């Protein structure tokens, strides 16, 4: 039996591991390194209606156990993404989750409507939480009413289930989650990056051309775990957890917290083979802790303990 397979709205996953959006491009680079069909799914790079160049460089800066990025949603635009990138990925046996972005509600609706028609796009991920775009998605990500409204609009046009990607830069993440759940979201993905900044000691100026950027990597894992823990207890829809995952133990921690699947972002830059490696190690780690299937781990940090008697000590 497969210890790792699981089902989420729209997604029939061989395993719960997928690269996070923006950290894997459209898969082409990694396809040169390993067979993408090994992956549970792929969250492709954010797509906007028109091509975007994104922010000036430098776009990344390193921080203690983390990094800041301010890419600025660079992408070749909806048409190119569908015709070139998504199409190209059809050769792999792997479901895509299309990350949908924009500056206005209409942007999101256009992208969602078109990209959800692609045969290998099995779900959408509404990126209402990118901190690096001025006048862009970020306002949706911190306002429950706007987020709900956007979710509703996108649900109306999408041909596949819609996951909403939550921003951690809010006072009350549960409120955001409940708002988009009520508006029809089929799932949540969380967390996006924390807003941060680094200054250059020589010039005194921000290292990133965009000044602020999104903090990702191991340093944010405690915040991500806390938020998944809080939200998973309050919503009925599944969560794809992320934030600082670098190995199979981290995956287990996110499952315990309440995630049903896990995305790997920054770690792909540190080790481009990290996703297949985690997939390989996960069964071993599950066995080590006495599990025979990932579903036994989900929400273990807060669920009633009946099923877990064999492990209490």
């Amino acid at each position, binding site marked *: 039996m497969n210890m790792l397979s699981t089902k989420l709205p729209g997604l029939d996953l061989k395993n719960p591991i997928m690269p996070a959006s923006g950290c894997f491009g459209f898969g082409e680079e990694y396809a040169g390194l390993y067979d993408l069909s090994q992956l549970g799914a792929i969250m492709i790079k954010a797509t906007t209606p028109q091509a975007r160049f994104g922010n000036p460089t430098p776009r990344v800066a390193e921080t203690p156990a983390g990094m800041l990025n301010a890419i600025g949603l660079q992408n070749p635009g909806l048409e190119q993404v569908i015709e070139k990138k998504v199409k190209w990925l059809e050769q792999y046996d792997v479901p895509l989750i299309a990350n949908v972005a924009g500056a206005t509600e209409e942007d999101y609706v256009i992208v969602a409507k078109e990209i959800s028609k692609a045969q290998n796009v099995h779900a959408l991920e509404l990126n209402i939480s990118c901190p690096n775009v001025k006048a862009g998605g970020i306002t949706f990500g911190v306002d429950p009413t706007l987020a709900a409204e956007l979710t509703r609009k996108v649900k109306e046009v999408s041909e596949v289930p819609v996951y909403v990607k939550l921003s951690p830069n809010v006072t009350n993440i549960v409120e955001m989650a409940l708002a988009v759940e009520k508006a029809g979201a089929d799932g949540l993905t969380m967390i996006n990056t924390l807003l941060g900044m680094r200054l250059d000691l020589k010039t005194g100026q921000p290292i990133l051309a965009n000044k602020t950027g999104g903090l990702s990597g*191991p340093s944010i894992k405690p915040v991500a775990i806390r938020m998944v823990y809080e939200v998973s207890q309050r919503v009925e829809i599944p969560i794809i957890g992320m934030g600082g995952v670098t190995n199979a133990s981290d995956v287990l921690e996110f499952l315990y917290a309440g995630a049903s699947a896990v995305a790997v972002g920054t770690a792909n830059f540190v080790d481009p083979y990290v996703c297949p490696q985690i997939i390989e190690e996960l069964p071993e780690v599950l066995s080590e802790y006495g599990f025979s299937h990932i579903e036994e781990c989900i929400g273990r940090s807060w669920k009633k303990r009946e099923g877990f008697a064999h492990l209490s000590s």
Partner: protein
Amino acid sequence: MNKKGDMTIVSQRNIAKNIFELTLKGDLVRNMNEPGQFVHVRVNNSYLPLLRRPISISSINKEKNECTLIYRAEGMGTELLSKKMVGETLDVLGPLGNGFKIKDMALKKTALLVGGGIGVPPLYQLSKELKAKGINVIHVLGFQDRETVFYESEFAELGTTYIATADGSYGEKGFVTDVIRKYNLDFDHLFSCGPTMMLKALQEEHGHKDVYLSLEERMGCGIGACFACVCRVSENSTDYKKVCSDGPVFKGGEVLL
């Protein structure tokens, strides 16, 4: 076809102020076929520093399965790297990027190689390969000061070599462009690597010639996936090139500097 592997440190030498020459042995060398490519080095198996460090391949020894990197120890990553000892292994990703494609070029008589500071290293393998093809190589190498000059004799063995220092404490005083002008250097091809200001100046003065420039940019992945290292192709379009996977070497004018 694994692009990542452990390489063993076979030597590490301090060759100038804060400048280290590091020789690595490993199977990745088999794929190193182009001067100007780089490797992406993980200096620590923890998260500090988190990201890899891009370092140019300075020379390749196929017989010994070795390659040499030359780097300046300045920040956390390169400082740590400089502490590594012979016998230790390093997690290396590479070779990455597109180098100086001299294999595909119709080469003429003379090549001018212009390096600035820590941009000098990749020119060494390039010079060796040009020389092996019978090309006349001239080097103009710019450094901060006397203490940071390295590889002068190595380059001098391959062709005429001018050294410039910003403070005049060694060789010519001034910038590489001053030297080229002063000696009225003539050439068919110009290959350069160094600070963007220098590349810009070269491009402006010699852009009408056959110019190849190697760029630097802060990187995330090093393989083209994260879009950290893009540069524009023109002012008015969203077109771009990635330094890590389309470059680091570009034809003069191919991208905006």
